[in-house]
């Protein structure tokens, strides 16, 4: 009598259950589609964001809220600086900082898309473009350290002590002659370090990436991992001094080239333009910029790492100008 009706009874709620769940999945998948075109017309967002229940402290957007998204480079995190600096800033400002450590390239993209409020980055050419295009509002010089070229103690290419461009030329020539002698590991992840490295190859009139040179490899990873990889493979790479010092114990790599003025690694803070992105917490970003340039913070920066590494990892620069550091 009943199998048919039972089947009906079963099928009805089951159908709706399945239907609704499939719908949820479909929506979840479809939700990703519009996000694929992120920078589309930032001007279109000038309409104030609709009040959302989930927004912290009941605000309709992040402007004036307690959350500050800081997009920065892996070097500031891997060196341990942010672990100390950010809690200090949170305490003094009452803001909650969401630090996202990515490469400088990705950090700048996050700024362009309004996904970050403030940037702490080290890729001067890209930063200048960012400012020219109007994505950033304020830009302040914070600190510098320097890039160094490291390699195995045996130094098969004999670049120790050479000027930086000459060293790159020798590496390329030696590698081209015998790729078992020289392996150079570049990051090629659009990070500040990678941009610097590629500009140096350009100065040396070599294009290892484009030419797919046998002696050159792209790691695509952060500085810490790239250093480990280079050490294991007894290769050469370029690194910022802070990450190198933080990892030094674990590495069999020596500093081979350093001290050239073109190797300066300069960090700026940039506030994201709130005219382009109304959701940006500009007040918070400005508070961070002022905190970073404050004499007390600058003094702290000059001492950071001295107890652990015997030398500072960063040199404060807020009183200097770009020109002082050889940037134009």
């Amino acid at each position: 009598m009943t199998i048919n009706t039972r089947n009906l009874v079963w099928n009805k709620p089951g159908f709706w259950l399945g239907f609704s769940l499939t719908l949820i999945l479909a929506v979840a998948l479809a939700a990703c589609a519009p996000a694929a075109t992120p920078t589309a017309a930032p001007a279109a967002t000038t309409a104030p964001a609709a009040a959302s229940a989930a927004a912290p402290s009941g605000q309709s957007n992040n402007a004036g809220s307690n959350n500050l998204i800081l997009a920065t480079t892996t070097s500031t995190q891997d060196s341990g600086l942010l672990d100390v600096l950010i809690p200090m800033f949170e305490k003094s400002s009452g803001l909650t900082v969401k630090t996202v450590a990515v490469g400088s390239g990705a950090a700048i993209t996050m700024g362009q898309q309004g996904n970050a409020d403030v940037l702490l980055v080290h890729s001067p050419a890209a930063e200048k473009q960012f400012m020219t295009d109007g994505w950033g509002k304020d830009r302040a010089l914070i600190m510098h350290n320097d890039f160094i070229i490291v390699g195995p103690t045996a130094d098969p290419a004999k670049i120790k002590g050479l000027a930086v461009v000459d060293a790159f030329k020798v590496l390329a020539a030696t590698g081209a002659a015998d790729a078992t002698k020289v392996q150079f590991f570049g990051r090629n992840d659009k990070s500040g370090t990678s941009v610097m490295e590629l500009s140096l190859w350009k100065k040396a009139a070599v294009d290892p990436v484009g030419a797919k040179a046998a002696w050159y490899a792209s790691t695509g990873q952060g500085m810490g991992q790239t250093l480990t990889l280079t050490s294991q493979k007894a290769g050469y790479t370029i690194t910022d001094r802070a990450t190198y010092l933080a990892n030094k114990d674990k590495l069999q790599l020596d500093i081979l080239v350093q001290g050239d003025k073109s190797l300066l690694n300069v960090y700026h803070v940039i506030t994201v333009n709130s005219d382009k992105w109304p959701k940006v917490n500009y007040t918070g970003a400005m508070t961070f910029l002022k905190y970073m340039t404050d004499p007390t913070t600058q003094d702290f920066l000059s001492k950071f790492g001295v107890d652990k590494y015997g030398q500072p990892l960063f040199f404060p620069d807020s009183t200097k100008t770009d020109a002082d550091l050889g940037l134009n």
Partner: protein
Amino acid sequence: MLSFIQSLMNDPEVWDVTLLSLKVSGIATLISVLIGLPFGTFLALSKFSGRSVVLTIVNTGMALPPVVVGLAVAMTLWRSGPLGDFNLIYTPAAIVIAQTIIAAPVVTGLTAAALQQLDTRLQLQLLGLGASIPQMILSLWWQARLPLLAALMAGFGSVISEVGASMMVGGNIQGQTRVLTTAIVLETNRGEFERAMLLGALLLMITLLINYALTKIQQGGARQR
């Protein structure tokens, strides 16, 4: 070495990170079960056209790379994304969402498989004995409790050990969204290999304890059979 372990255990941050890992992955697993158990049951018991297509999609979902899920969820939750106004990016809630998307297909697929391997005559017999539909389903779940608990463990295992999505949507923010797996990546990047390894051991110990408890329940049920 021993003093090193001691200093790690005395570090309050380690416990915060561990607790957050458990909380986030526990909630994600719970939601996955709430979705996967009914949906998997429906897939196992019902017959509709396109069912094998849905099952194929679910089974493919079991192999979703966490980093792809992370990217999709991040793009959705970023301020520039469609759900940006909720300010969920870089919060534990964002990790829960991503991990649920990872674990739900695992629970769904394994639930469907668990119920489908039951004798189909059991279903008819239960109904023939006058059981209502909910009673029948409860009874089928009880019969399949061993593979269903395995589905739960697989779901939890897939998210507690996942790093790609947590890193991308959580941001590995100290004191806010840093979980065990992202902390391990960070320590590795910093060249603190011993610390990273110890955190890994801690993660394994926790999953071991949880799986031991679940296996105990599972096998206790098995003996009564």
